[in-house]
C-alpha cells in the first residue's frame, strides 16, 4: 500500500487527543497545587530541604542512567546498523522510551515534593482540603504517566505508519514491523524503571534504616524529628522510591501492555486467520491494533472523571476516607466497562468484540481483586496482620515466622486471580479454538487492568505525599488538629501504597504473558530480518533461495507483474534432504524445490512426502515452538526455567545486600554527626541533612548498577547460550518465581509494617514495649522486602522480557552458531 493510499485511521486522533487532555489536566492540577499556600516559613524551609534532596538524587541518577543509555544505544546501533539483526529505529525507540519514562517520574516527583507542605497547610483548613491537594498531586503523577505513555505511543505510530517510508523511502512499514519496533521502546522504559525502582528502593530504605536505627533506637528520637540528620533523606526517599520509582514502573507496565497487545493483535490476524467482518488482512490488523490504544485512551478520560469524584467531609473516619478514594477508582472502572461495551464493538467484529469486552472487564476485576487482596493481607484491620502483632508478644522469632507465613500465604489471591483471569479472558476470546485470539484476549485483559491507571496511580502517589505532609506538620510543630488530619491522610496513604504495589505486581504478571507472546513476534521478525540481510537478489531470477543454515532459508519471490521486487523471506522449520518446500505467496500455495545452492524452481507437486517450508509471517506460535523445540523435555528450556528462578533469587539477594551496605554508610554518618556536632540533640545546631542525602544518593547509585546489569545481561547471555528455547524458559521461570516472590515480599513487608503500627496504637503494650521492639525488628526486615526488592522484582520480570524482545534478532542469528560450536544442537 503506498503512502498516499494510507490515510491515518480516525481512531488515531482519539489517542493523541486523550494524551494531550491528560497532560493538560495534569498541568492544570499542578498550577492549582502551586497556587495553594505552602504554609509558614518553617514549613517552606522543610519542604525545600526535601525538594533539594530529591533533585540532587534525581540529577545523580539521571547521570548514571544517561551513561547506561548511551552505552546500550551504541550497542543497539551496532546491532541495527552493523549486524543488521534488528530494525534501525530500535536505538531511537529505546531512547524515547527511557526519556518519557524518566520524564514521567521527574514530573511526578516535582509535584509530590511541592505538594507535601501544601497538603499540611491544606489540612490546617480542613481534612477535605488536605485530601484534595494530596490526591490532586498524586493525580498529576497518574495523568502524566498515562499522558506521556500514550503520547509516545501515538507519535511513534504516526511516524512509523505515515512518515517513515516517506522520509527514508521504500515500502510503507507493515503493521507487524510497526508494532515490534514500537515494542522496543518498552526496553527503554523498563531500563529507566529498573534504575528508578532499584535506585529509589535502595535510597529510601538506606535512609529509613539509618534514620530508624540511630535516630530512633539509639538516640530515642521520634519519627520526623528535625534533630535526626537522616530525617530529610528519609522524606526524600519516600518520593524517589514510591513516587518516581512507582511512576517509571507503571509507565512501563502501561506502555508495555498496550504495545504487546497491539503486536499480538496484528499477529493474531497474521497467523490466526482473518476474522469475520473484514475484507482484507490489513484492515483487520489495523482494527485489532487499534483496540488497546483506543481503550487505554478512553480510560484516561474516565480516570480523569474518577479523580473528580474523590472528596470527603470534615472529620471523616478511616472508612469514609477509603471510600472517598474507592468511589473514584470504582467509578472509573465501571465507566471503562460501559464505554468499552460501546467502543470495542465499533472497532472489532461482533464475533470477537464481546469476548474482548469480557476480557477487559476481567482485567479490571483482577486488578481490583489483587489490590484488595493485598489490603486484606497487609491492613491492620484484618486478621493476618493482627495475627503477626499477636505473635510479637511471644518475641521476635515468632513475629518473623508469622510474617513470612502471611507473606507466603498472601500469594494465593493475586496468583489465583491472575490465573483465572488469564484462562477466562483467553477462553472468552475463543483462545481454545484460536490461540492467537486467546492471547490477544489476555493482552486486552492487561490493558483493561491498566486502563484506569490514571486514577490508580494517583492513589499510589498520594501515599508518600500524605506521609511527607505528616512529616512536615510534625517538624514544623503544627497544631494538634492539623497533625491529626495529616495522620489520618497518612494512614490512608499506607493502605493505598500497599494496594498500589500489589496492583503493580499483578499488572506485571498479566502483561508478561502478552510480552511472552510478543517475544515470539520479535523472533518471527528476527528470522525474517536475518534472511533479508543476507539475501542477494539475482536480476532475472524468478526464485532464489539462500541457505541461512540451521534449517532456515531466505527466499526471494518476484511480484506477479514483475513491476517491483518484493523480498518475501521465509524460513523452513522442517525440511527434507531434497529441500522440497511448499510456501504460500499472496495467500496461494506455491510448491518449489530449493536446490540449496541459491536458486529455486517452481514445481507443481502432489508428493505428500514433500515437507513444507513455513513462511515466518503466517507461521503460528506452535510452529515456532516446534522449530525451537520449546518443550519441557528440552533441557535448554528447563535450564532456562531454572535460570529465571535463580535470577529472581540472585537479584533479590543483591538488592537486599545493597540496602544493607547503603544503610550502614548512613548509620555511620548519622553517628558521626551526633558525635562531631554538639548541639544537634539540644536543637541548637542544624544537622547536615544534605550530607545524609548525598550519602544515600551515592549508595543507591553505586549499589543499583550490579543488579541492573544482571537484569540486562542475563537474558542476552542465556539467549546466546541456550537460544530461543532457553530464553522462553528464562522468561517463564522469572515470571512465575518473580511474581510469587514479589507478592510474598511486598505483602510480608507491608504486614510487618502495619503490625508495628497496630502495636503503636496501643495494642500489646504499645510503643516502647517488648512487643513493639519485636515489631520494629520485623518492620526493619520488611522494609527492603516491600520497598526495594519486592517492587523491583516486577520490573525484573518485565525488563527481562523487554531485553529478550530487543535482542531477539541477535539471539536468532547467533545462538544457533554458538550452540553448534558448543555441540548443543542449534
Amino acid at each position, binding site marked *: 500500500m503506498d503512502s498516499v493510499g494510507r490515510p491515518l485511521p480516525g481512531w488515531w486522533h482519539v489517542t493523541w487527543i486523550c494524551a494531550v487532555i491528560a497532560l493538560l489536566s495534569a498541568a492544570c492540577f499542578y498550577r492549582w497545587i502551586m497556587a495553594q499556600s505552602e504554609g509558614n516559613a518553617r514549613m517552606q524551609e522543610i519542604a525545600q530541604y526535601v525538594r533539594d534532596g530529591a533533585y540532587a538524587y534525581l540529577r545523580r541518577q539521571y547521570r548514571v542512567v544517561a551513561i547506561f543509555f548511551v552505552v546500550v544505544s551504541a550497542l543497539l546501533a551496532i546491532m541495527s546498523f552493523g549486524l543488521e539483526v534488528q530494525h534501525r529505529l530500535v536505538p531511537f525507540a529505546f531512547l524515547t522510551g527511557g526519556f518519557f519514562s524518566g520524564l514521567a517520574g521527574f514530573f511526578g516527583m516535582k509535584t509530590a515534593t511541592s505538594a507535601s507542605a501544601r497538603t499540611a497547610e491544606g489540612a490546617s483548613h480542613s481534612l477535605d482540603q488536605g485530601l484534595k491537594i494530596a490526591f490532586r498531586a498524586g493525580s498529576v503523577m497518574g495523568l502524566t504517566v498515562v499522558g506521556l505513555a500514550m503520547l509516545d505511543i501515538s507519535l511513534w505510530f504516526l511516524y512509523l505508519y505515515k512518515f517513515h517510508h516517506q522520509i527514508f523511502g521504500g515500502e510503507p512499514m507493515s503493521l507487524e514491523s510497526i508494532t515490534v519496533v514500537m515494542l522496543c521502546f518498552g526496553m527503554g522504559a523498563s531500563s529507566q524503571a529498573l534504575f528508578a525502582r532499584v535506585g529509589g528502593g535502595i535510597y529510601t530504605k538506606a535512609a529509613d534504616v539509618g534514620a530508624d536505627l540511630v535516630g530512633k533506637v539509639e538516640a*530515642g528520637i*521520634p519519627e520526623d524529628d528535625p534533630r535526626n540528620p537522616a530525617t530529610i533523606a528519609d522524606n526524600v526517599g519516600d518520593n524517589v522510591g514510591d513516587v518516581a520509582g512507582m511512576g517509571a514502573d507503571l509507565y512501563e507496565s502501561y506502555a508495555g501492555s498496550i504495545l504487546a497487545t497491539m503486536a499480538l493483535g496484528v499477529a493474531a490476524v497474521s497467523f490466526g486467520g482473518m476474522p469475520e467482518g473484514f475484507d482484507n488482512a490489513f484492515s483487520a490488523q489495523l482494527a485489532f491494533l487499534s483496540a488497546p490504544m483506543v481503550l487505554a485512551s478512553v480510560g484516561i478520560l474516565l480516570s480523569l472523571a474518577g479523580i473528580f469524584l474523590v472528596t470527603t467531609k470534615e472529620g471523616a473516619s478511616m472508612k469514609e476516607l477509603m471510600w472517598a478514594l474507592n468511589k473514584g477508582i470504582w467509578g472509573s472502572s465501571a465507566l471503562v466497562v460501559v464505554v468499552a461495551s460501546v467502543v470495542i464493538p465499533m472497532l472489532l467484529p461482533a464475533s470477537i468484540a464481546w469476548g474482548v469486552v469480557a476480557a477487559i472487564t476481567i482485567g479490571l476485576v483482577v486488578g481490583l481483586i489483587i489490590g484488595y487482596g493485598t489490603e486484606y493481607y497487609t491492613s491492620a484491620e484484618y486478621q493476618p496482620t493482627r495475627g503477626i502483632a499477636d505473635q510479637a508478644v511471644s518475641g521476635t522469632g515468632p513475629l518473623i515466622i508469622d510474617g513470612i507465613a502471611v507473606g507466603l500465604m498472601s500469594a494465593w489471591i493475586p496468583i489465583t486471580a491472575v490465573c483465572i483471569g488469564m484462562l477466562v479472558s483467553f477462553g472468552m476470546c475463543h483462545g481454545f479454538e484460536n490461540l492467537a485470539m486467546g492471547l490477544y484476549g489476555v493482552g486486552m485483559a492487561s490493558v483493561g487492568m491498566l486502563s484506569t491507571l490514571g486514577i490508580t496511580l494517583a492513589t499510589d502517589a498520594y501515599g508518600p505525599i500524605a506521609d511527607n505532609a505528616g512529616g512536615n506538620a510534625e517538624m514544623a510543630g503544627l497544631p494538634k488538629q492539623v497533625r491529626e488530619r495529616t495522620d489520618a491522610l497518612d494512614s490512608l496513604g499506607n493502605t493505598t501504597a500497599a494496594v498500589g504495589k500489589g496492583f503493580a505486581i499483578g499488572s506485571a504478571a498479566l502483561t508478561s504473558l502478552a510480552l511472552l507472546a510478543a517475544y515470539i513476534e520479535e523472533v518471527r521478525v528476527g528470522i525474517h530480518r536475518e534472511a533479508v540481510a543476507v539475501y542477494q537478489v539475482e536480476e532475472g531470477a524468478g526464485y532464489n533461495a539462500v541457505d541461512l543454515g540451521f534449517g532456515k532459508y531466505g527466499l526471494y519471490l518476484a511480484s506477479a507483474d514483475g513491476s517491483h521486487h518484493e523480498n518475501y523471506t521465509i524460513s523452513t522449520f522442517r525440511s527434507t534432504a531434497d529441500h522440497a518446500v511448499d510456501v504460500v505467496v499472496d495467500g496461494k500455495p506455491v510448491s518449489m524445490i530449493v536446490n540449496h545452492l541459491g536458486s529455486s524452481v517452481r514445481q507443481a507437486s502432489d508428493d505428500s512426502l514433500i515437507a513444507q517450508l513455513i513462511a515466518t509471517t503466517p507461521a503460528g506460535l506452535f510452529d515456532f515452538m516446534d522449530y525451537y523445540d520449546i518443550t519441557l523435555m528440552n533441557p535448554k528450556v528447563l535450564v532456562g526455567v531454572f535460570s529465571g528462578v535463580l535470577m529472581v533469587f540472585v537479584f533479590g539477594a543483591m538488592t537486599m545486600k545493597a540496602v544493607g551496605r547503603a544503610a550502614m554508610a548512613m548509620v555511620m554518618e548519622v553517628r558521626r554527626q551526633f558525635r562531631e556536632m554538639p548541639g544537634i*540533640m*539540644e536543637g541548637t545546631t542544624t544537622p547536615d541533612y544534605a550530607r545524609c542525602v548525598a550519602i544515600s544518593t551515592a549508595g543507591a547509585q553505586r549499589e543499583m548498577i550490579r543488579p541492573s546489569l544482571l537484569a540486562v545481561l542475563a537474558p542476552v547471555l542465556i539467549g546466546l547460550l541456550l537460544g530461543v528455547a532457553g530464553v522462553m524458559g528464562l522468561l517463564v521461570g522469572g515470571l512465575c518465581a518473580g511474581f510469587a516472590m514479589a507478592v510474598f515480599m511486598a505483602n510480608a513487608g507491608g504486614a510487618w509494617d502495619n503490625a508495628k503500627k497496630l502495636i503503636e496504637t*496501643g*495494642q500489646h*503494650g*504499645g510503643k516502647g514495649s517488648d512487643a513493639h521492639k519485636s515489631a520494629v525488628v520485623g518492620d526493619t526486615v520488611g522494609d527492603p522486602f516491600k520497598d526495594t526488592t519486592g517492587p523491583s522484582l516486577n520490573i525484573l520480570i518485565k525488563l527481562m522480557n523487554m531485553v529478550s524482545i530487543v535482542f531477539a534478532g541477535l539471539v536468532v542469528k547467533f545462538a544457533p552458531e554458538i550452540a553448534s560450536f558448543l555441540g548443543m544442537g542449534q
Partner: protein
Amino acid sequence: MDIHLYLMCYRTEALVASQLEAEEFGSYMAVGTRKKTFGNVLFFEIDPTFRSTELHLEQVEAKCKPHPDGTPRRSKYMSLYRVMERIPLPAYGKLYLTTRDGRVLALDGRNFDDEQNTGGPFMYAELCPLTSRLVSHLSPKAFCQRITNPATTVYVPRIFFADTQIELDSDGHLAGYLPYANPSHIEDCLREVEERPDKLGKTVDRNPPLVAFYRTIASGFYLGDSTGIKFYSYPDVASLDADHHEWWRSASMG
C-alpha cells in the same frame, strides 16, 4: 552565673551542682554534649540556698565555677549515695522528667495529705532508694508511711516512687496498651493482694527495666517519709499530647 542544685534520683542517686537551667541540665544528662544513650533521667531541683556540710554544699561556690573558656559548669557532683533522705522535704522543688533524647517535662510538687484512696489495688514503681515494682492495696499515702516507718523491721528513711497504671479490660486482663513485660504475672499478683487483705504488698519484679516508663504513670510521683509526702501530679495523655507534644512524643518512644 547562678548555681543550681539538682538531685538525680533514679539508678544514680547524686546531688549535682550546675550552672545550667533545669531544661538544659536534663538534656545534658540525657544526651551529653554528644549523643550518648543514658536512658531516661529523673531529677529534682533543690532549693539553691539549701546548704549542708554533710553533703559538702559549703564548697559548692568554690567547685561549681565556669570553665576557663567562660562556658558554664554543666555538672559538679557534690555528693553520692543516701543523698535523697538528707535533704529536707521543703527544699525539694520541681521534679523534671527527661526522655532519652533530652526532652524535659517539669512537674510541680505539692504537699500531699489527702487519702485519695480510689480503691486500689495499686502498682508502684519504686525509684529511689529501692527499685522494685510491687502491687499493694495500700493507697500512696499509706504505702509511703508504711515503707518509711522506722517502727517496722523493713523500711527505708525516705521513698521516691511512682503510681503506675493497672487499667483492666472487661475480661479482667491488663489493658493492651500497657507496656509491661509480663502482664499475666502482674494479674496474678493483683489477684493475690486482693484475695489476701492481710498481705500489704507483693513484689512483681525486683529490678524491672522501666520500659516506656512515662507511658505507665498513673496519678503521678510521690516523695515522702513518715513526716510528710510531696506529690507531683502527672498530666493526663490528652494534656501531654496537646500541651507538651514534643516531650510526649519522645516519652512515648520508650
